[in-house]
């Protein structure tokens, strides 16, 4: 089990009803963390156009997560 801090943005934040939470979960990759949050908050968003960062660095869905990491979950972006 790993302790992972998850931060939600935009639609993900609204859907979860919070900015941030700390989970103790079985998770090898960023994708595993995303799955756990989807179950937790009944979200159906696929990873498709979403992005993820680990400890403020852009990452891939198969990037490994370590105990104590902060995982940032970004819904599809729309700047400009």
């Amino acid at each position, binding site marked *: 089990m790993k302790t992972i801090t998850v931060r939600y*943005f*935009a639609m993900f934040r*609204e859907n979860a009803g919070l900015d941030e939470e700390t989970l103790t979960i079985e998770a090898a990759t960023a994708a595993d963390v995303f799955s756990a949050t989807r179950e937790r908050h*009944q*979200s159906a*968003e696929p990873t498709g156009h979403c992005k993820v*960062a680990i400890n403020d660095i*852009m990452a891939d869905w198969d990037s490994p997560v370590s105990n104590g990491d902060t995982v940032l979950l970004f819904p599809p972006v*729309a700047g*400009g």
Partner: protein
Amino acid sequence: MIVMTVDPINPDALRRQLFDAGAGAYCGFEGWIRNENEGQAVLRLEYEAYDPLALSEGETILAEAKQKFPFLHAHCVHRTGVLDIGDCAVWVGVSAPHRDEAFQACRYIIDQLKVRLPIWKKEHYVDGHSGWVNCERCAKSA
């Protein structure tokens, strides 16, 4: 340089920062809040960003643009918070020796910013509902 701000953008003050005696061309782009999107009448927009990564990804984009289309100076400012129709949400300015680099670098920067920066916008429509742009599936799951 890229800046994220909640204050109104002042394009004239910004373009002056790009002045250079070696520049023969300046290209500027501004994204304005439009009163309509995909057939829906828009009242106002709300921008949210994650500044630390928006800034670092923005600097990466500026560096890529400089390598592809050698320019003298380029700046970019993106606003967040609640914006009304006609407000400037994003400004990009590039000065270069010749116009080709100025146009191409400016276009590259805005195209990349729009798809790579962690920025989200929620449209508030005249009919009272609202929606996150580019996020139909997450809207459905709400």
